[in-house]
């Protein structure tokens, strides 16, 4: 966005005004940086400085109290050696990837379904978006009972004559991670829906009608007109849901606490447990550095590619 200098329009150049006077007046009229100082300090004090320090601690054996000793790559080697630590990294990537795909697919479908014509669309949008406002922890506890062996899902299965499908969904290493995924998708599909609806509303009606006049089929209209115009909404939605997915923590503490047998440990839970539970601040920082680097790299590359895609369309 190009910012136009306010004084350019204000001070009409007359025969008396010389460039130096103009410049001085412009400087006087500028908003002083002093007003931004507290927020800029906060940005550095709570983001960039501690990220820098944290990145340094990732290469130390710091315990949060004593002097930190530089240990080089030892923390990262330990992560690479330890099966549970590798598992945490892998589960995070698995969860985040499936989460982004599922949430965006469902959100897009809901947005297209609720965009026009449907009479109850305002009510239904409110319903699908409501879980986004709630605490992921509280929602996790609700689903903990649904997935419980005595819980709702197994009872419904038994009632439907599928009793053999019953299992302890969260107690079984094969299903625990996917149960967590279901909870995350349930909570955040409405967020993707809202972002795509914002994109759909930016599509001018005339364009949409023109495609109707041309008798373009629904699928063709979707592919050639609607989806390309939704590219900016997709960029934002994928970025936000990727960050949410990579940082997953609350739901896991509510549902499985990382178990069974570390089948649902993620980077988020490992950062918490290693640092604040076991006091291994250096080792925890190494996990956090991996998470930060992954989010930065993934978010920025996909932003770059999706923006390029937007320009091509």
């Amino acid at each position, binding site marked *: 966005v190009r910012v136009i200098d306010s004084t350019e329009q204000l001070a009409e150049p007359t025969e008396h005004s010389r460039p130096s006077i103009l410049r001085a007046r412009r400087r006087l009229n500028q908003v002083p940086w002093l007003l931004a100082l507290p927020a800029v300090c906060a*940005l550095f004090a709570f*983001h960039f400085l*501690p990220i820098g320090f944290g990145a340094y601690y990732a290469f130390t054996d710091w315990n949060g109290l004593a002097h930190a000793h530089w240990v080089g790559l030892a923390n990262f080697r330990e992560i690479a050696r330890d099966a549970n630590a590798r598992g945490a990294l892998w589960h995070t990537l698995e969860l985040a990837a499936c989460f982004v795909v599922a949430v965006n697919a469902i959100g897009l479908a809901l947005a297209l*379904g609720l965009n026009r014509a449907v*009479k109850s669309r305002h009510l239904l949008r409110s319903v699908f978006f*409501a879980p986004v406002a709630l605490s992921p922890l*509280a929602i996790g506890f609700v689903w903990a009972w649904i997935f419980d062996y005595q819980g709702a899902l197994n009872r419904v299965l038994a009632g439907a004559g599928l009793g053999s499908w019953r299992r302890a969904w969260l107690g079984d290493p094969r299903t625990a991670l996917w149960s967590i995924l279901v909870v995350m998708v349930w909570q955040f599909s409405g967020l993707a829906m809202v972002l795509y609806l914002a994109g759909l509303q930016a599509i001018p009606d005339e364009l949409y*009608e023109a495609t109707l006049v041309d008798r373009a089929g629904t699928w063709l209209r979707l592919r050639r007109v609607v989806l390309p115009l939704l590219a900016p909404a997709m960029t934002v939605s994928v970025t936000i849901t990727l960050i949410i997915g990579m940082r997953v923590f609350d739901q896991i503490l509510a549902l499985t606490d990382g178990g069974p047998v570390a089948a649902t440990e993620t*980077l988020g839970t490992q950062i918490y447990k290693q640092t604040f539970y076991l006091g291994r601040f250096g080792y925890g920082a190494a996990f956090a550095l991996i998470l930060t680097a992954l989010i930065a790299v993934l978010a920025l590359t996909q932003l770059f590619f999706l923006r390029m895609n937007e320009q091509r369309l």
Partner: protein
Amino acid sequence: MGLSRYTRRTLVRELALVLVAVVYCLPFYLVVSIALETTAQTYRAPLSFPRPLHAGNFSTAWRTGGQAGLDHALLSSLIITVSSVVGLIVLGSLCAYTIARRSGRLAGGVYVLFVLGIILPFQLAIIPVYVGMRHLGLVGSYLGMIVLNVGLLMPLTVFLYTGFIRALPRDYEEAARVDGAGILLTFRRVVIPLLWPVTGTVAVLTGIIVWNEFFIALVFLAGSHAQTVPVALYSFVGGYAARWNLIFAGLAITIAPILAFYLFAQRHLIRGFSAGVKG
């Protein structure tokens, strides 16, 4: 209008979506129905709506949630959320005004830094911040949590305000400045009234985030008198292993106020999240 014609296919679509919405709402139904059951009912027939209703779970959950009852946790959450949001609005709007109104590279660069601050996760920063704040005696206190929230959510706040202010015409401010008003007076009297819509969005979005924040609250407030609702809920559920009717009563108490708030604030929440779609 060919767009809004209500055909038979639209009806089918509508019915399908309503059905999906009903299934979507089932977890909410479960919270209410199980919160009103006795323990015996929960094990016998948990899916049917309880008769007779058993409201005693709510008072038990209210008294025993967290360190000092759910009421204390709700109060802590309220104090922390409101103070953090006020701090964010004051400092964030001033900063965004400067960024949006200054020309030149520096303003653009500072804006990019704030956007980067949104993307980078707090998990790495929180480790040194925790040790630093423990050193200052700010762990487990309202003040520490408020300062932390203001710092962590400043990038999002500045991003939302800057986008809005950039789209505002400068005419009113310039008229005020020509009339001799100073920069702060102009900001207070001219700019702030124009900022109400985005201030609502910032307040709702950051308020919801602070209210629901769990990771940081767990690290900074667990076991303290200042613990917020999610932390209280976490220890509460741990203490009532498998007493689902009590747990769900506690959940209902904490979910209900947010759902009520959501009903009238959802417009702002949507606007906050979709700010990036237009910018």
